[in-house]
């Protein structure tokens, strides 16, 4: 299609109105009814082939029949997700660029960096929530420690000779909280991936780890790890027999990760609502519940408003978290 200069000029007032004042309700509703009328892009903040990428591609595949459109996954990896976040925030707010990522991680980024490139709550809108997932406190399966109380006893006895492993900001925060509540001071050893911790856990160099659920569930089924508790305040439906750390004396510890589909903030409300409805068809299905349960996560569906409020709450909470875990913001 060829666009003449005249058409471009004529289009400016309409665009300005759409951006500045929002589309007129009737017009926007019509746009939402037709949505999606073409290919939709899912943005993934991790490189192709990473665990998160598998996740995003799974949902792209499940959303395809629901949206009845081609869904293309675009990997915009790098800078701790900041590149994908900036890209989405600057995309056209029409619902065709959907960022499938963890708002909890975006909230953390607001404090991990001195100058976050995007104010996430102001520039992104959560259209649909996907899941809630905890981190797990784990010990090696050969360890005699069976409960949190026993672990604390061991850690107290070893004093500063005790060590623990962390793999991500959430893992650092949950571990720091745990140590603070019991007044213990084991030494932190940072790892890039959960897999790297395994040999040091087996040799007894690490007394405990705060692992992501994918790794923790897989390795506990494999007989290599024992999970002692989850970092969400309540138990997970996927793992009803695994008590929360809160129940076991780490009072009020509640640092869940959660995943969501996000769009640029100016996306018209009817399109956000339509996306929410479409995502719920997939999220509320039994198949997705079972898929999530394998990774130790619960599906979670919420309204865009509820989710956005949770997002804002997380951003505030992370301000305290990084102080607790003694993380220096970077620039």
């Amino acid at each position, binding site marked *: 299609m060829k666009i003449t200069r005249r058409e471009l000029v004529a289009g400016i007032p309409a665009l300005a109105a759409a951006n500045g004042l929002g589309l007129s309700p009737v017009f926007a509703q019509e746009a939402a009814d037709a949505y999606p009328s073409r290919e939709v892009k899912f943005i993934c903040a991790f*490189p*192709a*082939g*990473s*665990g998160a*990428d*598998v996740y995003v*591609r*799974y949902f*792209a*595949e499940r959303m395809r029949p629901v949206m009845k459109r081609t869904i293309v*996954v*675009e*990997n*915009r*990896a*790098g*800078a*701790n997700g*900041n*590149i994908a976040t900036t890209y989405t925030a600057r995309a056209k707010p029409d619902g065709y660029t959907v960022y499938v990522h963890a708002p909890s991680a975006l909230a953390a980024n607001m404090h*991990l960096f001195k100058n976050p*490139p995007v104010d996430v709550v102001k520039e992104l809108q959560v259209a649909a929530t996907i899941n809630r997932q905890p981190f797990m406190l784990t010990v090696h399966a050969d360890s005699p420690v069976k409960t949190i109380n026993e672990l604390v006893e061991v850690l107290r006895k070893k004093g*500063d*000779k005790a*060590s623990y492993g962390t793999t991500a900001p959430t893992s650092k925060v949950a571990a720091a909280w745990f140590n603070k509540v019991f007044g213990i001071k084991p*030494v932190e*050893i*940072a*790892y*890039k991936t959960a*897999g*790297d911790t*395994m*040999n*040091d856990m*087996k*040799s007894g*160099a690490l007394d405990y780890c705060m692992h992501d659920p*994918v790794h923790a569930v*897989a*390795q506990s*089924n*494999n*007989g*290599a790890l024992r999970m002692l508790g989850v970092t969400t305040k309540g138990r997970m439906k996927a793992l009803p027999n695994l008590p929360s750390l809160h129940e076991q004396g780490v009072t009020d510890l509640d640092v869940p990760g959660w995943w969501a589909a996000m769009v640029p903030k100016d996306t018209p409300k009817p399109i956000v609502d339509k996306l929410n409805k479409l995502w719920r068809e997939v999220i509320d299905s039994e198949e997705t519940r079972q*898929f999530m349960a*394998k*990774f130790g996560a619960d599906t979670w569906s919420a309204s865009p408003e509820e989710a956005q409020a949770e997002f804002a709450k997380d951003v505030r909470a992370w301000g305290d978290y990084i102080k607790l875990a003694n*993380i*220096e913001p*970077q*620039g």
Partner: protein
Amino acid sequence: MDFNVFSNLMTGFVAAGTFQNIGFAMLGCMVGTLIGVLPGIGPIPTLAMLLPITFGLDPLSSLIMMAGIYYGAQYGGSTTSILVNMPGESSSVVTCIDGHQMARRGRAGSALAIAALGSFFAGCVGTIFIAGFGPPLASFAQKFNSPDYFSLMVLGLVTAVILAQGSVLKAVTVIIIGLLFGLVGTDVNSGATRYTFGISSLWDGIDFLPMVIGMFGLVEIIRNLEQESIERNPISTKLRDLWPNRQELKEASPSVLRGTALGSLLGILPGGGAVLAAFAAYTVEKKVVRNPSFAFGKGAIQGVAGPEAANNAAAQTSFIPLLTLGLPSNPIMAIMMGAMMIQGIQPGSAVMTSNPDLFWGLVASMWIGNLMLVIINLPLIGMWVKLLQVPYRLLYPAIIMFCCIGVYSSNSEPSQLLIMVFFAAFGYILMRFGCEPAPMVLGFILGPLMEENLRRSMVLSRGDPMIFMQRPISATLLALTACVVLLIVLPSFRKTREVAFQE
């Protein structure tokens, strides 16, 4: 190895030998070879894109296809290394050194055939290795702790000095430069960003792909453009000339054996197993082979046979940690793990008992896949070699285009192309100073792993460096390193080394 292994392997061949599964193995190998040959487009994005397609297949078929893509790409990567000096992945960097020199003197067909046959042999041995020694090998790999990894990396870097031609000083310099490039990005321990100059695309470090494409591929093109009249060996595409001659086969066979043994062992270690294997095999060949017909770096066939066998053996045995411990040892294994989990299979020791058909079927399919690669590729050698006859004015722009597409598509970031251009300029400067790029790449890959393990060990020991001597594995590796250093420093050895290079 007990007798059961054979009955188990039979189970596997029955499961993998169905019409459907052989078809998927074939499809995987072909797609893999194709993306391996296209410079810049690697197996990782391809597998990630194909992942959703596998949801609908049965688990064994999908794993067979993905595994086929993996070693197909390994093989295809060697093809571009030999023909146009462009390594598609880290493990085929070494193949460039002598493989491309062979192509320059008209023995491209022979180099490709040796790479294919060497890889096939290594693949067969690797398969038996997994079947017979998988579980005990995995438990040995579990004994490697941070200090042991550190010592292994030190050994790897010190031996890299032997890898380079010319002065030791230059080799050490480029390795250190490689280490420094490896430091770029976010530090794991403190989260601090290092040498990023506020550029956000450097926060995760420099990507491997734009670096090697720039340093090897583009530099090669610049070098060829510099030579005013390019003398090109008349390339014969007669089958007789494509085939390795008796002398070449005789020289290559022991190298394949050594490479296979080394690769099978190093492949089980997490991290750069296959890369380390290829580099180590090259070093060993250089040390062991007394009178090669062509000097190393000038087109020695041993320099192709050893590393090619090693990286294929390692590619095969890198399945061991995934299948027996549920730990992926590289990004490709991580995708395989994702595929297994989506299919409802928990990777790990349980696979062998709960899904014996799947486990043994996958092992058997590796052998089938390797055989298929030889069948697909040997007849194609003539075609690949013909590619060299394409006039440079057409070939070079096409290569540059594919490089740009490959580098850009890895994460849709234009900055990656700038990094590629930077390394092309940097590689050109290195070439002008007579420095080899291969040791620098090894420093770049091993540097971050070495640093990570060094710091982790020191925190674990609360600052006591004796931790590296107290652990037997680490102490042994450091002792070996000391021997290598002595060899390099001792005057008598240096003399022979220099003499060797003057040939």
